[in-house]
């Protein structure tokens, strides 16, 4: 949309407005430029010289209405065709100046309103002079943290509160009128007081002009309802200002309704970074400021200021806090009064652990979630976690249990992180009521459970198995009681049962014993006419359900039997439902994501399913849970699907999804990799192995179990993988196997890869393989380079041969490579292998001049190769690898001059060069291991103890930054030992 042409002519730069020249008091002001325009004025920036001759910057506001036909003469004089209208504008301009002066002089407003120094008449119009302060208007382009934005708006609210206290309404809150001063973020000045009216001016409203800015004025102001305009009108303006800063748009009718909801997906700030209560409190703030009904808004500005102060506190990212978990809640569960009462009583009790036991699909989780929802107001934080692998793993999982400032380091084991996380949580939840729920718990209650209990939160364990519990409360959940089963069924049926349906319903309930999940699924199927009640009765009759009781003895006895019956029923309903290919594909694909599931939008994007409405159909049929856009499948339904065949459409969908996951969320990636691993049909595909190799490259240490289990897939992988990707993936796998001292497995994997490489006849792959082999022998030797046994001698010579072959192959690969990427990678590896080889000999150097000469020759040749690469030639994506290679070379060069030449100057120079290179390492730990430790060692060997101490202290300082993180604490102890050695030797 074209902007309107403003034809007003501003005074030119360097115009001097001498207000003192015509006998009146005042300085001569020199205009330095135009600062802005309003409907009634042009604002200039300028300066005057004070009595000491110092230049003082000011704003000068010229009365120059846009709406009037005006012209300016060459001398700057303004004339208007409609003199009366112009005079009336000038009068308002003067009145506004007087009002602004009064406001400015008011206690508490001096710092938050602009200082209108004086008013002068010149050029046929009026000018006001305003004190200049450094700053800018509030704007969306400022990337302020939310906390600062709230603080600014709180300052605005405080200023308006003062205006109210002085008997006026401001009525023009908008970003353009908020000037944020540079000195301090919280310091603001309000601009433009033309809309102000006295609070008690209702009787004489005609004397005031009532205007508004679109988006920042409530209904009563827009409708010109002078009788209704009051303090809450300004309250709306402040709410609208925060809304605008949070969402980047003005509030509209739907945002002002009593039922308005304020989602934060489209906010300018990422909700996940903040504590949950911030956004529920901001929502509440909007409800009480933007409400269309005046009575529903805060009635004065005081609570607005108070609430903004609380929001400011909640938006502080520097404070450590726990994030609430999301858990789906079903509104109004049927029956379960006594069970609900027990769970609620436990939540009220403030201590201990409650075990909720019952068969799968009986409604344990729904019961607990509904109670949490009922008691939500009394709980500070709810942590709802889905058990996976172990309690340690579940607690350590940052996706489920998030502490804003805590993150698992790749160097930490799960156990180490578990301990650290619990310590932190204990510290920050000391005065809080926290309820931790572990859903779907399996396994035993060992030491980790004891550690969890010690935190001091209330724990609810939901499990299918009857756990051996000593002093804690246990609640056995059984089927909904007979009188409530009809209501439960009708709820999902969405209509009352007809008289003629009641006999069949009774038979059905008899067959399934009121099992909750079975009831829900059958009712939904009947509702959607996918199943008749008669068919349901027939299916369930075959299942052979026995009575579900709450008796602990009978529970164990009947549990397995009835669980099988439920699975049989679900399988039969699946058959009767006659799912089409697309529906099966979606169900199978969603089942690959562990609880809490996957965001629908992400799933649709990944799987590229042609018709996403099928998901809704499946949700209405009860097969998929869709809550707040998160898709998941009930564990019992998932179990019933385990025996399904994978048809073409399902395989294609899953392959599509795996392809899309390549750069995706690591947790989703792992969930799919683990689950697809169990199904041959979707697994035997390039997409699975591509994804697996991608994951292996960055496999975190705490996923060691799955990582090591991948060894069983290597043979199969050779049929479906990209050879280079596979080689890189297997390299990481072998490294993990060797690290775990699983040399037999590593050897088996290498044998498979040997066969695979032979077929390829590719020097690059052969080079990679030989390097892996050398690394394997090195691992087996475990540093025993001074061989003592024949076996060690054989291993040593096998290692040397493998390394030499790797160098030879990689040299060939670098020469032969036709594409640039391969040439670069082979070139880098060729240098890297030679450097490693050289360093091995340098470190074992015993004075043999021939070896020294050969090493030096090699190093010089490498130096020439590296020097030939200039920074301008390096593509940005290669910079990191080049940096790493340069550091490796400089280290080798320094080692040579330490061990062979003892040349302090060259070594110091090399270390200085290393320090000047931008760190290519992924972690600070790598920096310590690959740079700090060797450099300190070299200095020590060269007799420069002080320098060695300085370098070690640098490493210790890094460790101190990671206080509480076990690997760094361990590394710090090592460094302290080094320090001691250096000092005492």
């Amino acid at each position, binding site marked *: 949309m074209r902007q309107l042409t403003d034809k007003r002519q501003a005074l030119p730069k360097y115009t001097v407005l001498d207000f003192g020249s015509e006998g009146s008091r005042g300085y001569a002001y020199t205009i330095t430029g135009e600062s802005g325009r309003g409907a009634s004025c042009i604002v200039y920036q300028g300066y005057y010289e004070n009595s000491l001759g110092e230049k003082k910057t000011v704003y000068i506001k010229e009365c120059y209405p*846009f*709406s009037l036909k005006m012209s300016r003469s060459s001398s700057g004089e303004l004339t208007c065709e409609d003199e009366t209208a112009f005079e009336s504008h000038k009068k308002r301009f003067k009145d506004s100046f007087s009002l602004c002066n009064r406001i400015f002089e008011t206690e508490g407003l001096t710092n938050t309103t602009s200082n209108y120094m004086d008013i002068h008449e010149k050029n046929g119009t009026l000018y006001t002079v305003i004190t200049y302060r450094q700053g800018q208007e509030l704007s969306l382009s400022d990337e302020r943290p939310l906390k600062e934005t709230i603080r600014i708006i709180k300052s605005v609210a405080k200023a308006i509160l003062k205006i109210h206290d002085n008997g006026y309404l401001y009525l023009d809150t908008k970003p353009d009128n908020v000037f944020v001063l540079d000195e301090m973020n919280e310091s603001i000045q309000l601009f433009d007081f033309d809309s102000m009216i006295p609070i008690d001016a209702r009787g004489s409203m005609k004397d005031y002009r009532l205007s508004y800015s679109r988006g920042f004025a409530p209904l009563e102001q827009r*409708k010109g309802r002078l009788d209704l305009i009051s303090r809450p009108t300004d309250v709306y303006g402040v709410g609208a200002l925060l809304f605008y800063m949070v969402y980047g748009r003005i509030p509209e*009718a739907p945002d002002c309704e009593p039922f308005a909801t304020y989602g934060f997906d489209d906010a300018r700030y990422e909700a996940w970074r903040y504590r949950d209560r911030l956004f529920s409190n901001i929502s509440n703030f909007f409800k009480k400021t933007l409400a*269309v009904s005046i009575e529903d808004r805060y009635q004065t500005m005081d609570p607005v200021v108070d609430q903004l102060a609380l929001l400011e506190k909640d938006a502080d990212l520097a404070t450590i806090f726990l994030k609430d978990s999301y858990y789906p809640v079903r509104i109004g569960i049927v029956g379960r009064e006594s069970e609900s009462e027990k769970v609620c009583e436990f939540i009220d009790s403030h201590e201990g652990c409650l075990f909720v036991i019952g068969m799968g699909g009986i409604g344990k989780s729904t019961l607990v979630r509904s109670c949490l929802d009922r008691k939500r107001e009394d709980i500070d934080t709810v942590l709802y976690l889905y058990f996976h692998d172990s309690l340690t793993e579940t607690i350590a999982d940052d996706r489920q249990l998030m502490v804003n400032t805590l993150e698992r380091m790749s160097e930490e084991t799960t156990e180490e992180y578990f301990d650290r996380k619990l310590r932190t949580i204990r510290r920050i939840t000391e005065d809080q009521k926290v309820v931790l729920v572990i859903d779907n718990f399996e396994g035993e209650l060992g030491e980790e459970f004891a550690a969890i209990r010690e935190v001091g939160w209330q724990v609810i364990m939901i499990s299918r198995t009857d756990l051996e519990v000593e002093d804690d409360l246990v609640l056995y959940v059984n089927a909904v009681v007979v009188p409530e089963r009809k209501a439960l069924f009708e709820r999902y049926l*969405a209509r*009352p049962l*007809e008289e003629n349906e009641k006999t069949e319903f009774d038979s059905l309930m008899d067959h399934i014993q009121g099992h909750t999940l079975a009831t829900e699924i059958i009712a939904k199927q009947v509702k959607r006419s996918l199943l008749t009640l008669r068919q349901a009765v027939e299916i369930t009759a075959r299942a052979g359900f026995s009575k579900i009781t709450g008796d602990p003895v009978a529970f164990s006895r009947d549990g397995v039997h009835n669980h099988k019956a439920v699975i049989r029923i679900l399988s039969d309903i699946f058959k009767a439902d006659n799912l089409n290919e697309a529906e099966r594909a979606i169900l199978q694909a969603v089942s690959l994501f562990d609880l809490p599931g996957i965001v629908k939008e992400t799933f649709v994007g990944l799987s590229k399913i042609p018709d996403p409405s099928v998901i809704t159909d499946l949700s209405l049929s009860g097969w998929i849970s869709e809550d707040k856009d998160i898709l998941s499948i009930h564990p019992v339904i998932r179990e019933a699907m385990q025996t399904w065949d994978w048809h073409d459409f399902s395989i294609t969908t899953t392959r599509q999804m795996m392809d899309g996951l390549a750069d995706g969320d690591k947790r989703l990636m792992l969930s799919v990799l683990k689950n697809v691993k169990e199904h041959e049909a979707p697994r035997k595909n390039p997409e699975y192995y591509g994804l697996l190799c991608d994951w292996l490259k960055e496999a975190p240490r705490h996923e060691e179990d799955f990582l090591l289990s991948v060894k069983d897939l290597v043979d199969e992988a050779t049929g479906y993988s990209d050879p280079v990707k596979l080689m890189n993936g297997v390299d990481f796998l072998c490294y993990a196997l060797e690290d775990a001292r699983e040399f037999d497995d590593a050897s088996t994997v290498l044998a498979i890869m040997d066969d695979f490489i032979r077929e390829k006849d590719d020097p690059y792959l052969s080079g990679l393989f030989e390097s892996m082999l050398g690394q394997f022998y090195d691992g087996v030797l475990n540093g025993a380079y001074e061989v003592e046994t024949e076996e060690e001698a054989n291993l040593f010579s096998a290692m040397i041969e493998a390394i030499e072959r790797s160098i030879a192959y990689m040299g060939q690969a670098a020469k032969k490579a036709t594409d640039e990427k391969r040439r670069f990678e082979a070139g880098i590896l060729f240098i890297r292998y030679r450097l490693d080889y050289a360093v091995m000999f340098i470190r074992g150097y015993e004075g043999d001049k021939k070896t020294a000469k050969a090493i030096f020759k090699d190093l010089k040749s490498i130096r020439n190769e590296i020097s030939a690469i200039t920074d301008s030639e390096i593509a940005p994506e290669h910079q990191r690898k080049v940096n790493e290679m340069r550091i490796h070379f400089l280290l080798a060069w320094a080692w040579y001059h330490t061990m062979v030449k003892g040349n302090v100057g060259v070594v110091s120079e090399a270390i200085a060069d290393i320090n000047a290179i931008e760190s290519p390492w992924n972690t600070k730990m790598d920096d310590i291991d690959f740079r700090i430790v060797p450099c300190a060692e070299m200095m020590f060997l060269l007799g420069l103890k002080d320098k060695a101490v300085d370098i070690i202290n640098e490493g210790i300082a890094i460790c101190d930054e990671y206080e509480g993180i076990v690997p760094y604490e361990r590394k710090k102890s090592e460094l302290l030992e080094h320090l001691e050695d250096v000092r005492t030797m």
Partner: protein
Amino acid sequence: MGRYTDSLEEMSYELYPDDEDFEQKLAEVAGQFRPFDVALTDYLVENGMIGETPSADDVIAYITECCKSAGIEPPRHRKKWFSEHKLIGRKTAFELCFAFGLNLEQAEDFFRRVCLERGFDGHDMTEIVYRYAIRKELSYSQAQDILSRIPPIKTENKIGAGEVVYTEMIQAEVDEMDSEEELISYLTEASDGFGYNNATATRFIRSLWNEISKEDGLAAKERRDHHMNYAENTEDYDKGESLMRIRTPKDDSLWEVYLQILGLGYIDTKKIGTDRSLKPILKNKDFMHPLAEDSFPDRDGLNKILNGEHVSHERVRKILILLAFYRYWARLLVETGDYEVKGGELIRCEQTINNYLEDAGYPALYIGNPYDWLILYSLANSEIPLMTFRGFMQELYTRTVEETQ
């Protein structure tokens, strides 16, 4: 004028669907709405433009004279306004504004109170020019001259992705303009943006409709939790049969949800000789004023708006009001589980509807407008506004069935 609206407001408080003579009372209210000729006469008298008790001929003569002196051809059917109580179109209404020499505020008021319609539409280039001309006190012929200098006006445009021109933005910009050249240049440059009618309203309608009609939306929840038993008005109820069996929506089709909103979820359209249209039940009812019947929310209009097609302002406004009204009560119903509401909610609902209208550039609810009256009447009946509205619609249906039989 005040007495006229006061009396309508009072009547809305005294009507209850349970009343034995409910239908008769409604007809009385409909009779209270002034036909255009009466409203026009009242307007001229109130503003001192004509003597205290003018005859139809006096008014016609006055209009003729005003038109002639303003250089406007007098409306051809002006006599039929009085003899047949005919309504006038927007073009004629604007001509009258020029003829009477109304200013901007008076013209808006004339549209709202006399024509019972919205004021200027910021998406219509002709109306923008009229707005400018009236603000600058230009003559009708000067306005026509400006119109002849701007590109042809598109009337059929779909709202698609990308930038949409919003009523308020256009009006705000044009209201700041000072010369014809500026206006012509603006309209010429921005002509592609015109033809989009009611963009804000369309966005609101789409969003409201989605919340109401989606799977497990408000309509589905109302059906599920309240079993939507309209049995009181059906023969089936007398037979003791559940109505859910008669009409269980197989899907949330537009027609099904539309009928549900109106409280007609149970109707058998064959009985009233129609298919997917409610025209027969609205027509020729003595308690349904022609202005309420005109552009009454319908399936076709809703469908067109959802598809981004052009429909009349009045149709858009009425649909927006209906959806905002239903959405408000359905949300409350889902929260409280009860159709009965507390007093404070009634004013909130009215303000909410007005906020939607204001944001979309339409006039607020006005008790003198027969369709608005129906909504305000439902709100005035303080306990069950949704059911009151539906009671009215059911009354229309029952009467139609009786007439058909």
